[in-house]
């Protein structure tokens, strides 16, 4: 789903349901989500999943655009340290997220809205747990509510 459509997704209930963009690595987290699904595990429907070949492909531009276009949170999920299919993409992701969190705070966005998780292909349970945790955390923070100036 293009990012621009995120804001058009209908609200499912009167309660605040956060929209969370999930950038998932093809080799691990995406497979873990698949496993969670085929194992009939339940996880909250707040995620808009974008599959990439590696967490190292997540350009900080994507994350800022996701927030601009209506995401209340962004989850980047990749392979465990040492397990990257491309040797060190996940380390680059880690460093980028650490720096981007600092930038987000200067721009008025809580750093907790950007989360990084290492989830291997077999860790469906870890994915489900992380999904529940993140939704709970974003619900506690409330909607992002960007300033009217952002979309001039």
């Amino acid at each position: 789903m293009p990012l621009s459509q995120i804001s058009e997704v209908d609200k499912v209930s009167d309660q605040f349901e956060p929209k969370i963009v999930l950038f998932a690595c093809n080799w691990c987290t995406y497979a873990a989500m698949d496993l969670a699904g085929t194992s009939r595990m339940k996880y909250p429907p707040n995620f808009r999943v974008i599959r990439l070949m590696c967490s190292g492909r997540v350009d900080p531009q994507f994350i800022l655009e996701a927030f601009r276009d209506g995401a209340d949170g962004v989850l980047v999920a990749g392979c465990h340290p040492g397990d990257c299919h491309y040797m060190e993409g996940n380390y680059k992701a880690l460093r980028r997220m650490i720096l981007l969190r600092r930038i987000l705070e200067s721009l008025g966005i809580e750093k907790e809205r950007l989360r990084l998780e290492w989830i291997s292909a077999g860790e469906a349970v870890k994915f489900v747990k992380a999904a529940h945790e993140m939704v709970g955390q974003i619900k506690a923070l409330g909607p992002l509510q960007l300033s009217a100036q952002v979309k001039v």
Partner: protein
Amino acid sequence: MEKPKIAMYWCSSCGGCEEATVDIAEKILELADLVDIVFWPVALDYKEKDVENLPDGSITVSLINGGVRMTDHEHMVKLLRKKSKIIVAYGACSSWGGVPGLLNLYGQEELFSRVYSEVPTVENPEQVTPSRSTKVDDVELMLPEVLPRLLPLDRVVGVDYYVPGCPPTAEVTWRALEVLLSGKAPPQGSVIGASEKALCDECPLNGTKPDRVLVQDLKRPHQVIVDPEKCLLTQGLLCLGPATRGGCQALCVKARMPCTGCFGPLDMVSDYGAKAASFFASIVDFQDEESIERVMDRLPDPVGTFYRYTLASSALGGRARANRK
């Protein structure tokens, strides 16, 4: 044949771009032979009504520097858009907001209270701030209004070409003028006068850059005696050359100062600061959080570092939310 007509205007800028135009030195005489300058408030005594009296589309090129910060800027750039065939965003402020665009980290109230009361050298016991109108001897005088944010030129009017730099160098300016006057128009939206490649490509130190540049610590320029024969990144200085468009012939690097990114993004990059931060994060030579945090701690102001010239044109355009905690 009638000479092409050129207009120049400044909005929210420091005047450096106006200086840069004159930096083409004696070539300005050549330029004066080639074109008619019909409007240039800094140098020539034409007024707004002279522009209004020109037929629509009669100005060949308008070079506009500075971002749009006030209602009169908005009015003038819209007027020039109507009267011009080609609008050029000249310089970093006009293209992406520039240094004044960093004020988008603050709201207008914070701006006024800082400038008109908090600054230590300001004495303003009556807390006077600019208001839109004031009466002097029964005459109402009007001031333009400050907009809530500084906007790059292309958020207000259509922009045909961009000339980057803070300010654009004389060489870049001249190359851009040659392109504009050649009649061979590049695709709309192009950056003209500068390079299509990153600064490293033309940097004299590029040959000394190792295959993999890795950074374990950052230093500020005053903390290091620069070896002029060695890539600045390998000396612990944060040089933004790899993320920045070339065209300046590495002026700052030649003066032993790291690139701060004033030539802005390369084609296909929409958010320069995010891209520059991404580049820097990728070359930090650590894999554990603690060491990475320690390197990032060496950047006291990441937004000011990576978005120095481009905050106003970034994805969020400035502070994302009004209240500052």
